[in-house]
């Protein structure tokens, strides 16, 4: 009896999902985006009456959910002018890929949703003027206000501070740990040099320690200058990652309809 039932159950089980699209939706909801893309592509290949734009948009959305932004861009590149959803997802994938120049080159009308990413890319390229913030809406305004709080550090000031008090320039550039360690690396050979000059009277050891002091002092000056000059870039990078997580449910989620 069991042997006869098995093929019947098996045949019924094949009909649980009426079409590829339903199965694709099931996979999408389960988070299996890779296989969802396979099903959607199968649908595009097999079914001539399928809504191409909708299916391509779903493929693009799946790629974005997988974090495969380059594939999403490649997929959406041919179709983004025909559908506003694909355009939004295309701009989103470009933004997540940090391809700001490409976003700027897109010709979008102001009524389209994808304009958000052009404004965002302008913010992150520091092209935004304070007078433009009047037109910004809710989330964008919040993002801009957060960006505007990131301060710039003067690298020459950092170098000057480090020249006077070794290590303090790095503290100024928000690297207190590095500053403490590098001040040790500068002061230790300096103290050793003083010891060999005054107490031990060893000339060779004195010159070696003075050389070490000079090398670490120069390294400290360069380090303070460099860490202050890349401070804004690093903080912007950190903020970029933060907003992508904070607004992942609204601004940075792809638009799609099954």
């Amino acid at each position, binding site marked *: 009896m069991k042997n006869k039932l098995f093929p019947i159950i098996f045949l019924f089980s094949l009909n649980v999902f009426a079409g590829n699209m339903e199965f694709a939706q099931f996979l999408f909801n389960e988070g299996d985006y890779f296989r969802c893309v396979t099903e959607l592509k199968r649908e595009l290949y097999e079914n001539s009456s399928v809504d191409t734009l909708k299916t391509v948009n779903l493929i693009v959305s799946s790629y974005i959910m997988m974090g495969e932004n380059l594939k999403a861009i490649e997929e959406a590149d041919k179709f983004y002018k025909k559908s506003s959803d694909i355009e939004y997802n295309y701009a989103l994938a470009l933004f997540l890929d940090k391809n700001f120049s490409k976003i700027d080159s897109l010709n979008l009308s102001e009524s389209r949703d994808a304009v958000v990413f052009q404004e965002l890319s302008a913010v992150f390229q520091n092209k935004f003027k304070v007078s433009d913030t009047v037109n910004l809406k809710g989330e964008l305004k919040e993002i801009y206000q957060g960006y505007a709080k990131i301060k710039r550090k003067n690298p020459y000031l950092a170098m000057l501070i480090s020249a006077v008090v070794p290590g303090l320039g790095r503290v100024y550039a928000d*690297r207190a740990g*590095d500053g403490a360690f590098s001040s040790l690396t500068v002061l230790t050979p300096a103290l050793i040099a003083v010891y060999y000059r005054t107490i031990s009277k060893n000339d060779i050891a004195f010159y070696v320690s003075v050389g070490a002091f000079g*090398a670490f002092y120069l*390294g*400290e000056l*360069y380090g303070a200058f460099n860490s202050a000059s890349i401070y804004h870039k*690093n903080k912007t990078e950190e903020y970029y990652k933060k907003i992508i997580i904070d607004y992942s449910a609204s601004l940075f989620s792809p638009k799609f309809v099954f």
Partner: protein
Amino acid sequence: MNFSLMLLILLSINTSDNYIELPFDKGDTVEIYFNDKYDKTLIDNSLNIIPLSVLRFYQIIISPAQGEVCNFTPSCSNYMFKAIRKYGFALGFIKGIDRLQRCNLNARDYLHVHYSDYVLTKERGYKIIDNP
């Protein structure tokens, strides 16, 4: 003094756990020996060959004694090596010293703040990627 320093180095190598595997099992040093693209020959038309040779001596003889201790990849000595090849002795050396000062207990706290990328390694869990 030189003799005592050499004795100390030889003793430290021989008492180290890694001395049998030296220098082939040493992170970046593996790259030096087995990666064809890596410049093994040290062919350099300038006087850079002197500091580069000193660095190479350190990498092959001294460094294996202390094992994998660097927080970054490429390691500090490789960083200075690459920086000298790229920017010349003066700036490369200063960049290398700066890197030595950054390679401290706090380096890992700055991941995702001042450093963005890292790579998983067997010995130290992960290392921060920082190229010259």
